[in-house]
């Protein structure tokens, strides 16, 4: 081949011209010295030589043509398999470069506009020459690119052959060292898509006319191979892409033909069923469906196929390990560009885990709503804005019962805070309290809230306890519950009645005890009266004086004195129980006990108790029962004084304090009706009462007890309203309290500042 190529080079037409010239040079002086006869001889020789050269050229052309035909047929055979086209193109380029003794061959794609890029996609370059691949700006070769795009062959033996308008092309070619160039357009279906170019860099060379059609033929072979290669690559890539997508998708995918028979399952499906593709294709997939679901699934699928409608099925799919998986199978009709139905593309999701989770959620929800619903109390959940989002049965029942009540009749969707505001504006103090409590919990100002109030429906009064608990979730809100505590209140009422009886008994007892201390003194004169009367009767008798009226008068006198004594005795009988005096009594404790005893009674009367205790605990000596009786008396009096006041604050402040060393003080301050100066002076006397129906004994007994303990009691009018009663008791000294309650603190905490609506009931 190489020999042939070099032969072709030396035997090229320029060589022939040279040889003709050398004939003239070889015989210069034969011609000068010879005759005209030689001219003919010379003409003959020339003729012979020309003839020989023509014969040789024909032979060369034949050989070249043969080689070209061989190359083209080799290439055509190689290009049958489109996959190897790029490789074969490069090999062909190499072969051509060597056979034509060239330096470089380039196959390039050509943009359609002049400023486009020329992409050198394949090239072959002789060793020692710079290779050429990649992007070449087409504006560097505007003239050549334009010629090629117009379908012309560009053939340059020398760069000088370029027209003057192709200066840019020329300069750029020169810069690359190109000496000769031939370029053929690649045409696919009449459009120029690229170019095939050959060039020499070491020397200039001519491009024989017969070479051009061959190169065109070669270009055609290349162009069609490339076009086929590209089409096949695109198709393969498209399919590869689909498979990649289908196989990596997190769901199962299938395809079907227009007849509904499955034509494709992706890897995920096959992995789940554990079957080979052929087993599930066609109608085979139905075997993977759970027997109980199969008939329905197949039936539904068929009717969807015949209607060519999208469908969604759920059924159990048998997994490779025999486990049944719930799946959701969604099919969408495939319509081609002509609008024809070509089958389905289906996607299948395993929803077993989802189903399990859903069932768990449903069960948990059912359980919760069962608990919520079965609650005896009325429960409503509100969101952070106060809108009711759920209520239980009990709430609904109560709402129906009370209907018109803006707060308790509220249902889902109603803003509960607004309902409370509305009721509060209408004068419902309980609604205002509820509003404050709920708002405090919603805004996180209070961890929870609880309040008690009376609800009066048409017929009866019922007591409720309202509890507000925060709704512990990101969106916030609260749960409000009402519990009917009427029965509890009734029970408390009963115990209150008992306490009142006890208090009453204690007061009577006190009276009896008081009388006991006086009994001796009273009985003495009574005994004298009786004895004197009876002595008088006997003396009259002894002296024989009969005076019936005097005798009767003396008898009556004795009898009446006996009667008076009997009264004293009966009173004394009430105070048989004796109490031992004790030392080291905690005065704070005594006061707290009484306050606790009266708490519900005071709460019902809507009276706030402010309890303040000195940080040191005064210890006193005496009878704890009697001392408590004094405190009880003062509290009962205070609450009755408040009960008699028409309006204003309802407060009792109880203070225990160490007034001076050895002197403890209990102060009971009320906001009741108070007393005038005259009443103040006499109120501790027996049988003096400022209260309607009062016996006038309470304060008298209290004074007796206090004085018996070595203390004193006094009353004073408050600057604003009500009275303050002060009890001073000698104390044994004081010990620091373990837990000092600071002034202003309220105790016991449970009923701090409670303002509970209640009707006043006289004790």
């Amino acid at each position: 081949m190489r020999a042939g190529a070099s032969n072709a080079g030396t035997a090229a037409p320029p060589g022939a011209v040279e040889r003709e010239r050398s004939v003239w040079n070889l015989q210069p002086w034969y011609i000068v010295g010879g005759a005209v006869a030689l001219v003919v001889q010379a003409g003959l020789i020339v003729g012979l030589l020309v003839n020989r050269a023509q014969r040789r050229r024909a032979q060369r052309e034949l050989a070249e043509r043969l080689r070209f035909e061989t190359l083209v047929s080799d290439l055509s055979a190689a290009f049958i398999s489109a996959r190897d086209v790029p490789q074969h193109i490069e090999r062909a380029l190499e072969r051509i470069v060597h056979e034509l003794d060239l330096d470089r061959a380039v196959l390039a794609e050509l943009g359609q506009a002049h400023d486009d890029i020329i992409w050198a996609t394949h090239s072959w370059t002789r060793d020692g020459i710079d290779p050429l691949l990649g992007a070449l700006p087409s504006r560097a070769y505007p003239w050549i690119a334009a010629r090629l795009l117009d379908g012309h062959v560009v053939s340059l033996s020398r760069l000088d052959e370029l027209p003057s308008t192709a200066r840019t092309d020329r300069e750029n070619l020169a810069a690359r060292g190109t000496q000769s160039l031939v370029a053929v357009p690649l045409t696919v279906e009449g459009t120029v898509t690229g170019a095939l170019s050959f060039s020499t860099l070491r020397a200039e060379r001519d491009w024989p006319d017969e070479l051009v059609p061959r190169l065109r033929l070669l270009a055609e072979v290349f162009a069609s191979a490339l076009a086929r290669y590209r089409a096949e690559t695109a198709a393969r890539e498209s399919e590869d892409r689909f498979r990649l997508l289908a196989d990596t998708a997190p769901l199962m995918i299938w395809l079907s033909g227009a007849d509904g028979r499955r034509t494709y399952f992706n890897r995920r499906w096959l992995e789940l069923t554990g079957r080979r593709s052929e087993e599930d294709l066609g109608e085979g997939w139905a075997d993977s469906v759970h027997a109980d679901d199969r008939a329905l699934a197949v039936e539904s699928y068929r009717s969807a196929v015949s209607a060519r409608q999208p469908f969604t099925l759920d059924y159990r799919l048998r997994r490779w390990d025999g486990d049944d998986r719930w799946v959701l199978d969604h099919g969408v009709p495939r319509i081609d560009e002509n609008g024809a139905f070509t089958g389905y593309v289906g996607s299948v999701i395993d929803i077993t885990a989802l189903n399990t989770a859903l069932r768990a959620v449903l069960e948990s929800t059912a359980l919760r709503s069962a608990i919520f619903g079965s609650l005896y109390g009325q429960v409503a959940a509100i969101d952070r804005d106060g809108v009711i989002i759920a209520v239980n049965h009990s709430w609904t029942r109560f709402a129906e019962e009370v209907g018109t009540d803006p707060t308790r009749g509220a249902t889902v969707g109603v803003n509960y805070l607004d309902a409370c505001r509305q009721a509060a504006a209408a004068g419902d103090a309980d609604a205002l309290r509820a509003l404050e409590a709920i708002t405090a919990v919603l805004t996180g100002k209070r961890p929870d809230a609880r309040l008690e109030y009376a609800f009066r429906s048409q017929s009866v009064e019922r007591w409720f306890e309202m509890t507000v608990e925060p709704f512990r979730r990101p969106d916030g809100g609260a749960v409000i519950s009402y519990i009917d505590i009427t029965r509890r209140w009734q029970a408390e009422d009963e115990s209150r009645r008992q306490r009142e009886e006890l208090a009453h008994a204690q007061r009577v007892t006190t009276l009896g005890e008081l009388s006991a201390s006086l009994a001796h003194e009273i009985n003495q004169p009574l005994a004298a009266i009786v004895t004197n009367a009876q002595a008088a009767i006997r003396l009259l008798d002894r002296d024989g004086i009969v005076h019936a009226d005097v005798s009767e008068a003396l008898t009556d006198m004795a009898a009446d004195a006996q009667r008076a004594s009997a009264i004293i005795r009966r009173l004394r009988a009430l105070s048989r129980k004796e109490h031992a005096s004790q030392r080291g009594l905690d005065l704070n404790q005594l006061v707290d006990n009484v306050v606790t005893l009266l708490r519900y009674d005071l709460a019902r009367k809507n009276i706030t108790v402010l309890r303040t205790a000195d940080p040191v605990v005064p210890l006193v000596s005496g009878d704890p029962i009697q001392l408590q009786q004094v405190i009880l008396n003062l509290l009962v009096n205070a609450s009755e004084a408040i009960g008699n006041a028409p309006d204003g604050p309802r407060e009792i402040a109880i203070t225990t304090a160490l007034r001076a060393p050895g002197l403890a003080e209990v102060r009971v301050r009320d906001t009741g009706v108070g007393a005038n100066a005259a009443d103040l002076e006499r109120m501790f006397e027996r049988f003096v009462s400022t209260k309607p129906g009062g016996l006038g004994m309470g304060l008298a007994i209290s004074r007796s007890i206090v004085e018996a303990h070595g203390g004193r009691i006094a009353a004073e009018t408050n600057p604003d309203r009500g009275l303050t009663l002060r009890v001073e008791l000698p104390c044994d000294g004081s010990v620091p309290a373990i837990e000092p309650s600071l002034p202003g603190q309220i105790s016991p905490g449970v009923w701090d500042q409670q303002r509970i609506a209640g009707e006043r009931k006289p004790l």
Partner: protein
Amino acid sequence: MCVIDDDVSLLRALRRLLDAGGFQVKTFSSAEDFLDRPNPTPPGCLVLDVHLGGLSGFELLERLVAAGRRIPVVFITAHDDAATRDRAHRAGAVEYLRKPFDDESLIAGVNRALGPA
């Protein structure tokens, strides 16, 4: 017989009554007065108040018993309770009377104290 009571008014009334009943009566307003009397012949019977200014009735009785004198006693008291009554019986009282008492109860008691002499 002797009557001891710290209430002078009652003491006078008792003297009148017992005089009328035909008894010879000496009265004292305290246990100390009784013990200090000028002519200390033991009386046949004592009408004795439980609560006296100085020595109580019980204490007086204990002293008399301690001194070996067994004098029948009728206790009278204005301060009647179970403890007092109990103690009176244990001290060997012939009678225990709550003031104000009936003349017949007193005379019956005194008669029993003086015995069937």
